[in-house]
């Protein structure tokens, strides 16, 4: 059973932030590779997002998100109040253009060109964020 006060706080945060990432660490200093991958995906988008470090309250937050979204692992990206997914889903949606669509932004040119047929002059995608 999740802590009722924390659950309400999380629900308020999800409602107040159109794009909200629950992650391990911070966008500037992710402390988990999966969280870093979602930060990198979001950083290719021209979008503002809120980020919450789950590490200080990992287990209580896990219980809360299990009740809210039936999802236990972090990172979790919420868009317009709905759980979009974790790192695997976000990366897949980034490549397919669905992430831009969900966020209501234009698909960045470098991403759109990358998966199928990258132009000869295009620089390699920077995936090492360190």
């Amino acid at each position, binding site marked *: 059973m999740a802590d009722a006060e924390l659950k309400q706080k999380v629900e308020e945060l999800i409602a107040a932030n159109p794009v909200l990432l629950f992650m391990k660490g911070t966008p500037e200093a992710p402390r988990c590779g999966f969280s870093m991958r979602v930060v990198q995906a979001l950083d290719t988008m021209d979008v503002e997002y809120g980020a919450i470090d789950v590490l200080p309250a990992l287990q209580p937050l896990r219980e809360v998100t299990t009740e809210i979204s039936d999802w236990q692992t972090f990172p979790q990206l919420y868009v317009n109040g709905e*759980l979009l997914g974790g790192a*695997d889903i976000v990366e*897949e949606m980034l490549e397919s253009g669905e992430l831009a669509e969900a966020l209501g932004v234009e698909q960045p040119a470098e991403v759109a060109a990358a998966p199928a047929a990258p132009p000869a002059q295009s620089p390699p995608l920077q995936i090492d964020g360190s």
Partner: protein
Amino acid sequence: MADLAEIKATIETALPGAEVEVADETGTGDHLRATVTAPQFDGLSRIDQHRLVKTAVKERFDDGTIHALSLKTQAPG
């Protein structure tokens, strides 16, 4: 240390007709990668597709056999 064949069978039982591949991503047997193509995914969002698979293997997460499962899901066709 997860039994890859057992994990694959568990997913196939939960999602009859599914094509499932399970791989050990790190060589440690607890960080797995699965590719699942299942008719049950038709019309579902990715998160719901993942939920179906995660639910199928929940027991192996709960008992600590698996620590991480990277998923790639799609509907057939």
